[in-house]
């Protein structure tokens, strides 16, 4: 069969012709290897018109790789592609877009210093006869698009002024604006709050009704059952099975994903609660939050809930001295400390796992060892400036095994690891400093169930050993399951602290939106 070119495909699509084939996309026997890892091994995948097809699998299972192949970002080593029954070959993301395949990336790919409208219409700016961009028209189209999707944003805002959640909505709008037949969403809800997730689902349902096929990668089980028609499960670069979302249960999927059963999601053990380790009095960072006061005891896990943008992360950054407080007091073991930079916080026994792995966590160009040891170097491990490589390497190996970081060796650049494994490396970085107070900002965001359970277990173990844990999370089940008490924030204020026994989803949500 003759292949059709991307530009022909685009013209056909614009003519509004409805394809006859039942499957929008059929991918078969795809194989892709990276140096050190076989990412996909003989994988096949089919997508029906007007269906939402969820992809599940642990980090590193190959979901994102497959999607990047479908979106033309990676070229597969072998395998065939059929779009609406026609054999095609993708060589670039642009090809994919012309064939009607758009992708919402897991990492945000917007240009900070450009406006929302410019970001959405990049490469497709409406031009006048002289080749100049028609800004008015671009703004009108953006407004129209936002109205259709019910997104309350100004097209003229610069992207850098938007919150992470709003950026994600812009990404979604951008992908929708291509009016593509196939829309790939790679964990679109990881930065969204419940309300925004609802909004996204409304958009997805509308697209479905138009016949768009949606590939939906997620780690969240409840989303799967709410939105998906089919689910394909991947494990270790292999396709494990396809099911109708209506005839499969949560436990069955987990079993497929990990190849075993996970008995308990949130293994909370009641740890002996000790003395107050961290005491915060009326903490305030101008323009971000104010009046935050709490005590955190040894062995206690203090969960922090609230919508994205409620100031949760700002509190964590201030506690660790990244953005020093404008007023208020921080007492560690009863002693007031002026924590004006991270070094001071670390010397006081604190550790801080940041929210954004890529921006403030990983040194992407460096290898795993360099990433793990960097915080430790402050705490000795160097004689006259020379680093004790052997000692540190042994410690890194120990952490790698303890946290089950999946990698051929410690000299692998961290950029080649999956998100979950990167997160484990960052956790190892902080555990190596033997912290007394552990601040975790979204410790399990974008992490597969297996790794998630391991991390939860680890946090609980640390609490039992007497570490005081301050844990921010957008996932209510996680906060409810793990915490001894839950601090709730709303718009820069602390709206309450709820005890474990009184905590319910409803109670927390009330406080978070009060």
């Amino acid at each position, binding site marked *: 069969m003759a292949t059709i070119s991307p530009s022909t495909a685009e013209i056909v699509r614009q003519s509004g012709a409805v394809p006859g084939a039942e499957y929008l996309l059929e991918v078969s026997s795809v194989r892709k290897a990276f140096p050190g890892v076989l990412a996909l091994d003989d994988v096949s995948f089919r997508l029906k018109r007007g269906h939402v097809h969820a992809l599940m699998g642990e980090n590193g299972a190959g979901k994102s790789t497959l999607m990047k192949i479908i979106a033309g970002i990676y070229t597969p080593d072998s395998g065939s592609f059929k779009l609406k029954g026609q054999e095609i070959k993708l060589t670039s993301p642009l090809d994919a877009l012309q064939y009607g395949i758009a992708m919402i990336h897991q990492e945000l790919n917007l240009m900070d210093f450009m406006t929302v409208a410019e970001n959405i219409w990049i490469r497709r700016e409406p031009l006048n006869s002289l080749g100049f961009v028609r800004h008015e028209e671009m703004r009108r189209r953006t407004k129209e698009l936002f109205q259709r999707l019910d997104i309350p944003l100004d097209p003229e805002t610069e992207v850098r002024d938007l919150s992470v959640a709003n950026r994600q909505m812009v990404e979604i709008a951008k992908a929708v604006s291509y009016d593509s037949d196939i829309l790939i969403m790679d964990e679109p809800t990881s930065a969204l709050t419940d309300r925004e997730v609802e909004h996204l689902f409304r958009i997805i349902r509308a697209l479905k009704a138009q016949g768009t096929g949606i590939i939906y990668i997620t780690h969240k089980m409840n989303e799967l059952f709410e939105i998906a028609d089919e689910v394909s499960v991947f494990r270790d670069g292999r396709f494990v099975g396809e099911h109708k979302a209506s005839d499969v249960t949560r436990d069955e999927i987990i079993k497929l994903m990990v190849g075993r059963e996970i008995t308990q999601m949130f293994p909370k053990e009641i740890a002996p609660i000790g003395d107050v380790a961290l005491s915060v009095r009326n903490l305030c960072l101008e323009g971000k939050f104010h009046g935050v006061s709490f005590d955190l005891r040894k062995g206690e896990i203090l969960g922090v809930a609230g919508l994205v943008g409620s100031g949760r992360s700002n509190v964590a950054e201030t506690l660790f001295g990244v953005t020093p407080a404008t007023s208020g007091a921080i007492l560690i073991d009863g002693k007031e400390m002026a924590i004006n930079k991270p070094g001071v916080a670390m010397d006081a026994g604190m550790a801080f796992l940041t929210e954004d792995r890529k921006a403030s966590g990983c040194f992407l160009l460096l290898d795993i060892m360099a990433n793990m040891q960097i915080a430790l170097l402050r705490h000795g491990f160097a004689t006259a400036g020379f680093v004790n490589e052997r000692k540190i390497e042994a410690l890194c190996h120990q952490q790698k095994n303890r946290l089950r970081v999946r990698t051929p060796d410690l000299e692998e650049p961290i950029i*080649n690891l999956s998100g979950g494994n990167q997160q484990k490396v960052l956790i190892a970085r902080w555990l190596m400093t033997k912290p007394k107070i552990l601040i975790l900002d979204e410790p399990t965001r974008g992490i597969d169930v297996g790794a998630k359970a391991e991390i939860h*277990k680890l946090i609980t173990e640390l609490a039992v050993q007497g570490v005081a844990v301050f844990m921010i999370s957008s996932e209510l089940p996680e906060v409810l399951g793990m915490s001894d008490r839950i601090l709730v924030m709303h718009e820069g204020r602390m709206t309450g602290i709820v005890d474990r026994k009184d905590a319910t989803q409803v109670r927390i949500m009330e406080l978070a939106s009060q």
Partner: protein
Amino acid sequence: MATDISTAAPTSEVRKAGRRRLPPELSILAVMIGMMLLFEVLGWMFVGQSFIANPLRLRIMVLQEAEIGIIAVGVTQVIIMGGIDLSSGSVVGMTAMIAASLAQVAGYTHAVYPSLTGLNPIFPVAAGLVCGLIAGLINGSLIALTKIPPFIATLGMMVSARGVADWYTNGQPIGNLSDSFAAIGAGWWPVIIFLGVAFIFHIALRYTRYGKFTYAIGANPLAARVSGINVERHVILVYMIAGLLSGLSGIVHTARAISGQAGVGVGFELDAIAAAVIGGTSLSGGVGRMTGTVIGAVILGILTSGFTFLNVDAHYQEIIKGGVIVAAVVADQYRQRRRKGA
């Protein structure tokens, strides 16, 4: 632990393929050797003599590049840290003048400081080094504390330091330098100094906390800060070291030329950056090695002396040199992309 995912890791053959990782300098070393052989062949074809088997030529080549090399050792560290230093060449000019003014022979009546002639060479050397350190301190402080881009801060220093060099004696060269000072630039000393500092900072980059922090800041300054690194202090330190090495280069140059001239060092900063980049240091920071920079400096030297040897016109030399620098970076980008597998 209750869970086990390690059993289902990628297949072992693929793993092994990823393990065999050659040091990245090997390819650039191959380029260097290839270039020498090329000139050797061209030499027999067009000039009728050997390029390599000529100790005098090799010595001139190495000596020429030693001064650039000393600067490149500092610049490499600055670039790894995600910065850039455009001021090195001008700092060479400035230190040349200051060091020369304190190194004049005893009793020379037309000396810059007639009362300060015949000093022990320690004084001019110390003055030159301090002068470089101060330039680096200003560069680093501007960058770390005011957060202006390194390009701008060091561009300012480039202009100002050259101004200081010209102002110092109103552009008059400083001659009649003492033999004991000139000895620093005699014989193989410049080369020994170059290889010495390269070795010291090779060790520092690879095995000390200083080096690890330098790579970390270049790879992700924000993550470095959150990891408790005092980023500002470290940035200032690295620029000071770069300034110090520029000063050292200025001293070596002055001693070798036995004269201080305000115009020396023009364009040295770009040659030093070129040496680092040819050697595989990434201008976006976080990547680079001292061994690569040494090889990069030698490659530049081979180019210059090879073309001179072949009697290629100086203008053509520059044109080709530009092309080689760009080609080196293109090749490096290609290699990195392949390594990432995208």
